[in-house]
């Protein structure tokens, strides 16, 4: 076995006195798609944000492609990395946010071109050519000159995916990419993600889309209250969950999917 692309060991994180991650382990091989599921407040989004150091972890270690994230070992001691080196580590990790976070003062094309030119120092012409190809790939070849405010939520999220891909990352992180979308726009974003997965992109996806996880994921991780409750192949975790908490969550997701007037589950 070769080294996994992402290796997280015993990751812990507190906000003040609240411990939101209590020893998370995760291994993701190159080309693998991992879906993190769990109720809100379970820590899955926080864990995702730790992988590219948007959150600083208190315990454990995270390696991405062999690089220890946010830390360096020198003279037998760990040192926190300065901002500049953290920025360098982030260049190879793409991230897609729940609320898109496109730059509203730039057109779709400018959004995608910005980081390759300003961060990687690529030539503008070459970066634009690749950006156009990426926007074409997410189905927005005709919207390159539009500002984010002129695009629908689903279109904005697809631009955001193209923007992250423009840095040619080794790993893509998705933080509930469809949660802020109107229901009829969810499909177009999931279609793009499905295509990425089929092309062998390594992806870690925090999502509530159980059907997407079942279809696309190689590994499903179910989290609750800061710990991993259950993990494995989607058919096992989603089809035949062993833990009560997983079963409750999946049952609640199913009722939520079928009727909008589902009563809140007890507990």
């Amino acid at each position, binding site marked *: 076995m070769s080294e996994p692309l992402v290796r997280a060991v015993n990751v812990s994180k507190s906000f003040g006195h609240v411990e939101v991650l209590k020893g998370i382990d995760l291994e993701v091989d190159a080309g693998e798609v991992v879906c993190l599921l769990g109720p809100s407040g379970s820590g899955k989004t926080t864990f995702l944000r730790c992988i*590219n150091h*948007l959150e600083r972890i208190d315990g454990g270690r995270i390696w991405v492609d062999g690089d220890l994230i946010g830390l360096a070992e020198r003279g037998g001691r760990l040192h926190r990395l300065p*901002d*500049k080196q953290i*920025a*360098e580590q*982030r*260049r190879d*990790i*793409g*991230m897609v*946010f729940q*609320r*898109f*976070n*496109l*730059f*509203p*003062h*730039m057109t779709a094309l400018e959004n995608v071109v*910005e*980081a390759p030119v*300003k*961060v990687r120092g690529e030539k503008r012409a070459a970066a634009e050519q690749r950006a156009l190809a990426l926007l074409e790939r997410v189905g927005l070849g005709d919207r390159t000159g539009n*500002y*984010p*405010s*002129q695009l*629908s*939520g689903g279109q*904005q999220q697809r631009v*955001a995916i193209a*923007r*992250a891909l423009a*840095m040619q990352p080794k790993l893509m992180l998705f933080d509930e990419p469809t949660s*802020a*979308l109107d229901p009829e726009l969810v499909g177009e974003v999931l279609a793009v993600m499905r295509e990425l997965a089929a092309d062998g992109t390594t992806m870690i996806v925090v999502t509530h889309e159980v059907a997407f996880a079942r279809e696309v994921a190689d590994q499903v991780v179910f989290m609750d209250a800061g710990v991993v409750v259950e993990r494995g192949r989607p058919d096992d975790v989603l089809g035949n969950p062993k833990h009560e908490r997983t079963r409750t969550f999946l049952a609640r997701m199913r009722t939520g999917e079928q009727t909008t007037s589902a009563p809140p589950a007890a507990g």
Partner: protein
Amino acid sequence: MSTPAAPGERPGRIDAVEVRHPWRWVSVAVIAVLVLMLAHLLVTNPAFDWSFTLEAMNQSTVIRGFLIGTLLTTVLSMTVGILGGVLLAVLRLSENRVLSSVSWVFTWFFRGVPRYVLLGFTGSLGALFGTGLSIGVPFDFLFSSWFGTPELRAFTIGQQSVYDLLGSTIVGGIVGLGLSEAAYMAEIARAGILSVDRGQHEAAEALGMSRTLAMRRVVLPQAMRVIVPPTGNEVIAMLKDTSLLVAIPVTVELFYQLGQIGQQTYQVVATNMAAILYYLIATSILMVGQYFLERRFGRGFGTSTAARPAAAGVSLGAGGAK
């Protein structure tokens, strides 16, 4: 005329009498009388010597005062103020307590001192540094006196008097107005930076941008939308505040020059009218410029485009209401 619809007939187009507003016509009449009275005053009162007003406006000393003491000073003071203000705002938002305290103390001082008083002080800096200014090693004179060679200085270059350095008193004025303005611009820039959603910082940083690059390419351009309107007001206020340069005093300045003419000719109303006209012309031109600037930095937020989804994650910011 339209009549109520007959039974069984569906009501059609409405052809109704609009509400009358008789008091509007009364107010129009009252205002018309007041305007006529004002016009009569302006034309017939001999104190408004209009030909003298125009003559005063045309004096070369006055025009020079307007170009240098008013316009150039406004441009240079606002440049100092805007650059200083953005720097102060970034320092103020820094995690480094020392830097944010420096910014706070600066703002505290320059906002607390009236501009007129401050200008009196910066205009007299020459007295403060009577022997001149030079670049060298700080406190080297202490070491020199310990070694018994009080005249010895380490690496000192360019000792010269403050008047040589500043060229004229107007530099003291620009320094005073600029530093005072920086304190106000700091608050405006800070509000602008804080109005940009945190998600924008995160998106920029997730792409591997350094904080400086994220600030310059992502945050500040969006903050400009909130910063520009109050800054336009600051420019207009600064243009008017150049008249405070009499505190130094700066002689190459519009209001000083017109005041001189007024004192010599006793035509004070006419020279004041000339000053008013100059300031109104300049501020009107600035307001046109402000309109175009606001349009430029409103890109991507236009009202002509489709309504922006609330979920787009960009807060419009409290400053937008200004």
